[in-house]
């Protein structure tokens, strides 16, 4: 091998050496500090909403949550009163409708995209679903108000109210024009559908193909493979996806504000106007005149935050439960 010309060796400077020696401790502290900021942000949300709602808790205590009267403006007939139940009920019901509509459909779409879709369509359809999940909710709300509401009234709400609604009180008329729990729930369902489908598709695609092949080689039909091997394998992730969708529906503000009708009266029918916690906060907080009103709205935000926190915990518990599999598995 050819002789290589010698060149001076490079050694470290002492200044640099001092810098590098303490760099690691400094870097660790720096990243730790910023990581702790994430905890700080959550704590800030908790503290601000908790302190902000001190007034309403002093006035009503926990019964604030199930008080049924919400009346921020003093009139001769009705005294000022703040009960969160109309808003909480509306939030829960509209999300429930969204969940009932979107969970089975979303899972079915996920199964179709991952297992059954012709290969040529798989990529474009998948991209479309992911793009739809990214569209801002105000656009869903806009379409809901301007286009979907009339259609829903003519083809769904009125026919149901005029037939089944005669006997079932919670589907009874009169149908509020373009407003109400049912239509809000439906738009929320359309909105969370891409989220649920995209996550379901992702977790199904992560199932190793040999699990499918083992079932196929036993003479299972495609559906038996999907339902017997693929879906059970991925159920934890599917549950997680549904939970994520539910969380989005619970906290959604704009679509709800535009479509729910913003009425704090509790009416039995799903076709009557109602309100949700998010919609109530968005429409009243900027104009709240008396401190108790403002404090009540912040209390609502605290309740909403609490609900999503609990949902997060439940989702984690379910994922943990379902991922364990049969006893004896080495985890």
């Amino acid at each position, binding site marked *: 091998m050819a002789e290589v010309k010698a060149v001076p060796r490079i050694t470290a400077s002492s200044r640099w050496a001092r810098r590098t020696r303490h760099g690691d401790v400094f870097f660790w502290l720096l990243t730790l500090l910023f990581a702790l900021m994430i905890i700080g942000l959550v704590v800030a949300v908790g503290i601000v909403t908790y302190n902000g709602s001190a007034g309403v808790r002093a006035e009503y205590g926990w019964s604030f949550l199930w008080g049924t009267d919400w009346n921020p403006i003093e009139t001769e007939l009705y005294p000022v009163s703040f009960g969160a139940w109309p808003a909480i009920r509306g939030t829960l019901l509209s999300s429930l409708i969204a969940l009932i509509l979107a969970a089975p459909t979303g899972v079915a779409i996920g199964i179709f995209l991952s297992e059954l879709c012709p290969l040529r369509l798989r990529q474009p359809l998948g991209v479309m679903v992911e793009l739809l999940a990214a569209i801002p909710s105000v656009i869903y709300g806009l379409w809901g108000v301007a286009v979907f509401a009339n259609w829903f009234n003519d083809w769904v709400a009125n026919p149901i109210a005029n037939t089944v609604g005669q006997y079932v009180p919670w589907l009874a008329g009169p149908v509020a024009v373009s407003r109400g729990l049912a239509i809000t729930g439906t738009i929320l369902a359309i909105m969370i559908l891409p989220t649920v489908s995209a996550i379901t598709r992702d977790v199904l695609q992560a199932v190793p193909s040999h699990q*499918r092949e*083992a079932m196929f*080689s036993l003479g299972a039909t495609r559906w038996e493979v999907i339902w017997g091997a693929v879906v059970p394998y991925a159920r934890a992730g599917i549950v997680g996806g549904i939970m994520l969708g539910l969380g989005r529906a619970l906290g959604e503000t704009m679509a709800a504000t535009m479509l729910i009708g913003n009425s704090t009266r509790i009416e039995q029918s799903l076709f009557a106007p109602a309100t949700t916690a998010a919609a109530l906060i968005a429409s009243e907080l900027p104009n709240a005149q008396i401190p108790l009103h403002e404090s009540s709205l912040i209390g609502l935000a605290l309740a909403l935050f609490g609900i999503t926190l609990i949902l997060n915990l439940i989702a984690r518990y379910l994922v943990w439960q379902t991922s364990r599999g049969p006893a004896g598995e080495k985890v």
Partner: protein
Amino acid sequence: MAVATPPRSATQTAHSMTVRGLKPFYGKRLAVQALDLDVRPNQILALIGPSGCGKSTVLRCLNRMHELIPYAHAEGEVKLDDINIYAPGVDPTLVRRKIGMVFQLPIALRTRNIYENVAVGLRLGGVKNKAELDARVEKALRDANLWDEVKDKLELSGMALSGGQQQRLSIARTIAVEPDVILFDEPCSALDPISTLKIEELLLSLRQRYTIVIVTHNMQQAARISDRTAVFMVEKTDDIPIGVLVEEGPTEQIFSNPKDPRTEDYITGRVG
């Protein structure tokens, strides 16, 4: 009670397969040159050859598993006894029911326990009676030489077993539905020598009741257990590799007195 398959009696005749002009494709690319092959009843046919020669592809064509790979399909004729499994109108699901398959990696269905791992095929076949299920699961596990090791832990997940045990579990699952032919795709390549030995013993005992095709990259294994051997090679035309069936014959003859010089090169270790 719906009974899918009556338990097989020892006297039942075994089944043969005939392959004529089989051409497996990946997309537009032909993977193996059109080949003819006979699988004789109650024998073990070994497919050997260097990696990339298409032996696994051919195996997967024998029960129409090949077409499950995206963009893959096969042309030609594969007969189980006198039925062409590639004839129009034949449901691949039924074909796979009749021609079982055991894979390279031991597969325990992750969300089922050991018992259900074996019972799953029977349930698909419509067996619902608990006593009958129990009996047939036990028989399959006994036939797979696994019963004594797992009889006390049938409720545990299949994932709790060792690799060799999982592979025998896969075999138990396959023979529980009493197929006519069993295909093995390098069943020992992920296992340690002792587990390999157990699987080989198992294969020899299964030969009395089933027709078996096995793909292996281990020539000694082929020599030890198979009755006949088919040797595949890779050839390159215009830089595109294609698998070719070089020679097929009784195992003894292939290993002691190969007709084709390429076979000789391969088994003496000069290529592959």
